């Protein structure tokens, strides 16, 4: 926790610092996150040499040089620990939610899966990104569904959408599964989109039209569109959109209801996203809350392990920034110069092909996990006796 970092950790806290100093900063992004981190920063400001962290006092964005200076400071370990401490709190809350969501006889396995999952460790503590907050909100939304508080669940999901945008792909499955009536579905979807829309409208009304346009133009929004088939002229078939549409249309044409169906179809949507879209390695934690609820399924964990191995290889494309640089706080001069896995592979074989092969396997593993879950759902639906009605499992 105190020994590793990616420069993205400093970037979010740098914006928080600018907020505390009441200075404008570049970029739109979810201001709620910046406010949250400003709160964290304000809390432990007395415990760190605050003034020496931020580089040029006149700058309104941090630069790579600032990160290099940050990593070289004497109190770097303390600063990293405190910067990540809020994430530990949110992770504890996420684990608590997981305990609430899983069956009593499956809790230990689900929690062990979570605590020992390399993806969770990497995303939250090695890379140091705030996705654990979004994961906590996703789990909270699921828990509220379990308590039959659908409206509140959608609001919480909407907060997750506001913070990270990508959970927007879960709004429609939530709405379609939680309600069967069209009006109710529209209402729920509206609740799910309300925080994001309110934020955009607030931005527009306060004169941040350019920033809103900037948000729409963010490269991240293109990631789900990266896998495509070119047809002709301006005609492209985007694979994730195609498959996602199939899922949504299936839910429209077939009634699926209940908590276990909700978890299952959210799982399908998320694995489809990872199978077909470009993503940053720390995003992979978004699968973890759903995967944690399926750990007892036969062959699920072995496939997931293979998936993680492929994901590790996938990270090689980021070179040293996801290799030695992460350990720079321990010894900047040494770890900045350590060869990355891709550089080592390039000595023998093009690393770009190795990454591509691993990525292809990763996508296959995603679909295999979806198959394992689907297969189990079919088994669960088969009646034990032909005279008895099919009984759905209460929990996945």
């Amino acid at each position, binding site marked *: 926790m105190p020994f590793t970092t990616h420069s993205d950790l400093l970037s979010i806290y740098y914006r928080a610092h600018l907020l505390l100093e009441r200075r404008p900063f570049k970029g739109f992004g979810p201001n709620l996150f910046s406010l949250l981190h400003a709160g964290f920063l304000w809390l432990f400001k007395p415990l760190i040499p605050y003034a020496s962290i931020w580089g040029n006092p006149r700058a309104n964005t941090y630069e790579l040089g600032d990160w290099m200076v940050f990593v070289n400071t004497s109190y*770097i*370990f303390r600063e990293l620990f405190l910067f990540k401490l809020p994430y530990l709190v949110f992770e504890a809350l996420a684990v608590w939610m997981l305990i609430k969501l899983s069956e009593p006889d499956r809790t230990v396995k689900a929690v062990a899966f979570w605590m020992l999952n390399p993806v969770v*460790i990497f995303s939250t503590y090695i890379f140091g990104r705030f996705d654990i907050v979004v994961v906590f909100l996703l789990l909270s939304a699921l828990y509220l569904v379990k308590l039959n508080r659908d409206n509140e669940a959608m609001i919480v999901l909407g907060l997750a959408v506001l913070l990270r945008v990508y959970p927007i792909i879960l709004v429609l499955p939530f709405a379609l599964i939680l309600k069967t009536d069209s009006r109710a579905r529209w209402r729920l979807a509206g609740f799910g989109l309300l925080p994001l829309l309110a934020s955009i409208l607030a931005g527009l009304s306060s004169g941040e039209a350019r920033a809103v346009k900037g948000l729409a133009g963010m490269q991240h929004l293109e990631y789900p569109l990266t896998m495509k088939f070119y047809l002709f002229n301006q005609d492209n078939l985007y694979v994730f959109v195609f498959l996602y549409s199939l899922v949504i249309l299936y839910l429209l044409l077939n009634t699926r209801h209940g908590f276990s169906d909700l978890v299952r179809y959210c799982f399908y949507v998320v694995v489809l996203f990872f199978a077909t879209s470009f993503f940053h390695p720390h995003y992979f934690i978004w699968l973890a809350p759903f995967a944690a609820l399926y750990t007892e399924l036969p062959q699920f964990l072995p496939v997931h392990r293979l998936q993680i191995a492929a994901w590790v290889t996938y990270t090689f494309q980021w070179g040293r920034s996801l290799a030695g640089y992460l350990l720079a706080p321990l*010894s900047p001069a040494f770890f900045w*110069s350590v060869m990355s896995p891709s550089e080592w592979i390039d000595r023998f074989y093009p690393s770009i092909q190795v990454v591509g092969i691993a990525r292809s396997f990763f996508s296959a593993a995603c679909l295999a996990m979806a198959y394992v879950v689907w297969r189990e759902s079919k088994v669960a639906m088969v009646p034990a006796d032909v005279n008895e009605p099919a009984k759905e499992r209460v929990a996945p």
Partner: protein
Amino acid sequence: MKKRAVKLLPVFLMAVLLSGCVEAPVVGQGVAGKKKQPVFGRHTVGQNFEVYDRNLTRVDVFLYPPRAFRGRPVLPKESGARTRLADKKVVMRLYSWPDRREVAVAERPVSKMNRAAMRTFYFDPIPESKKRSYYFEISAPGLTEDLAIRVGLRYGDLYRRGTAYIDSRPAAGGDIQFMPYIRMTPRMLLNSIGSRLLADPAFIAVWLLLVLATAAATALAWRKPVVQR
């Protein structure tokens, strides 16, 4: 606390240590210069700098190729420049500073410098380089002005512990793009990590207590079901 992440660190460190020494950069100055200062004949460009550890072994300098290349990977066979550059070298001389005692010399052939890039000059590790100042000078005595290599010079004192020199005279607060390297041995690495950990002993002590408390709590929780049985 994620003990597994901490457990992975020693494994990683061992793998690195077993792989041998690593050339680690001393913080130099990585911004390319806007003014391209030619180096040829008696004209030289130099830079003084400080080294924080032992085993200085390498200096990288950003060099622009002779204009004759004009973006081409190789010079045409019929080109006179190719013949003239065939045996010409860029020389890097390293001196202790400020006494200007020569400590190392390294050369690179000019004919292979077909693009602007950081060029590496290796020399035998200097064991006594810790907390010492050095000065390196780039020269190309066999080149003429039309075949000169060029060094990027930037004004604005980006590297505060030294300055650039043109023809042995200070370039008034300018710096060139350069990076010295030390050969870091496993022992030096461990010393480096140890000294960084000990720079904030209060935090390390608190963190160790937290880790031990977490480990103890986990062990107790793990044993409890066995005791109950």
